């Protein structure tokens, strides 16, 4: 269970997040939507203890991220970018993460197999394509076999096969009782994957509910999204 409660973040004089609250529940895939710069990544970074909230809280199973006993086995996270040093090989990258969490090297080979990177594991991360980098990020997130997954734009840069794989994979995770929170701006893709939807705009939540509730009278999720986030019709919820 992920609980975001009245989260505020200032950077300089800018207010990035102005008091947002929502939950991501176990057994469901929660989609976190918003235009570029709406505050999606900031929220996820605070949730993962990377950035500090100005006020409010972002809790994982009721605790801040830094107080988790075994973070890698509790939360798997893949943020934007590769998250790995360019000069290291993919395998070496996963191995130091495994070492930090007390996992074996054979687990590294397992996740490499799951994300389909076994053949590229000996290459330097700097030579990876965007899609391969995303797969490496997924592999790192899955290392500890966590109950909670937090993914920032997981399908960005993936080929059609990869996108389908992510979709079925995330559905399976949720069905077996895990929590999945993913951010995206690909509406069509998201509508096929998520159960719950949270829409953020200019650092405030403009919609929060199940997929059906959020779509409401609109024909598609995309339609609903544009109505909710466009400047003119901003007040409709």
């Amino acid at each position, binding site marked *: 269970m992920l609980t975001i409660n009245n989260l505020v973040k200032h950077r300089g004089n800018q207010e990035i997040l102005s008091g947002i609250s929502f939950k991501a529940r176990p057994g469901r895939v929660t989609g976190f939507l918003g235009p570029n710069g709406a505050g999606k990544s900031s929220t996820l970074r605070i949730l993962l203890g990377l950035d500090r909230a100005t006020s409010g809280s972002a809790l994982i199973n009721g605790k801040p*991220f830094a107080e*988790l006993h075994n973070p890698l086995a509790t939360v798997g996270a893949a943020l934007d970018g590769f998250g790995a040093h360019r*000069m290291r090989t993919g395998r070496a*990258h996963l191995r130091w993460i495994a070492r*930090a969490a007390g996992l074996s090297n054979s687990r590294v080979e397992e996740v490499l197999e799951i994300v389909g990177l076994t053949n590229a594991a000996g290459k330097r991360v700097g030579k990876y394509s965007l899609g391969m980098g995303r797969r490496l990020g997924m592999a790192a997130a899955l290392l500890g076999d966590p109950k909670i997954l937090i993914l920032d734009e997981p399908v960005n840069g993936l080929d059609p096969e990869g996108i389908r794989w992510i979709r079925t994979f995330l559905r399976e995770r949720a069905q077996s009782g895990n929590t999945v929170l993913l951010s995206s701006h690909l509406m069509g893709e998201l509508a096929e994957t998520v159960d719950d939807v949270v829409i953020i705009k200019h650092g405030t939540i403009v919609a929060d509910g199940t997929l059906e509730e959020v779509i409401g009278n609109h024909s598609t999720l995309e339609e609903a999204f544009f109505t909710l986030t466009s400047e003119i019709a901003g007040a409709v919820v």
Partner: protein
Amino acid sequence: MSVSSSRKITQILGAELDKLVTLPLIGLTLMGTFILNLALAAAFTSAGLQGAAGTQSILNIGLASMGYLKAGFIILGILATCSEYTGGQIRTTLTTIPWRGFQLSAKHLALVIITIPVAFIIAASGILYTFIMMRDTAEVIEIDTMIKPLLGATGYLTLTTLLSAAIGALLRRTTPALVVLLGYYFIVSPLTRVFLPSIKNYLNFFPDTAGSYMYMPPSSDELNVLTPMQGTGISMIWTLSFITVAIVFYRKRDA
């Protein structure tokens, strides 16, 4: 501390060691430093051989390259901490090990484990080369008089590496960290010694000068010299305070 937290510490230390070892730039830096040091030792020896025979001490010439050698270790320290900020690795690090103070301390500890043997080997190789080349011309020195400055040199290089790592962690970017550190060690520190002889006594309290007493053979013509122990103490205080400041900042700011 429970059993599980002591295991956690070893795991984190292991991960930090892994990170250092699998970074090719670090291996290259150390290799380059080793080769450069031998080349410099050769240059100093050959310059020494051209000088008046018999008056040169092998130790002085063997350690003369220390002045340049520290550059390699400054780079090592900077690479260790600044490499976190390449390709966004810092986010992976902090989602894997969210205990920031712990993590940065473990990184410094891992750096010590790597630096001590390497610094010892590199410093010793320079002295050994000089020893072999100058056996016949210079006054012969005993092994045990060599050991103390050698240990001092190892300590000096290790503390310099740690100080550089702490500054790297503070600045987070390789180039500014490199400019600041090289600027201090190679420009500001020697210049103040030349231009401001009046404050010489205070210079002893700065990391570069204080640290150099750790390996410098005591010379009689200078007043106000520090003993190797005093030098070690002062550089250690500098290094530890910079590491502390780095950790405080690291814990406070957004990654």
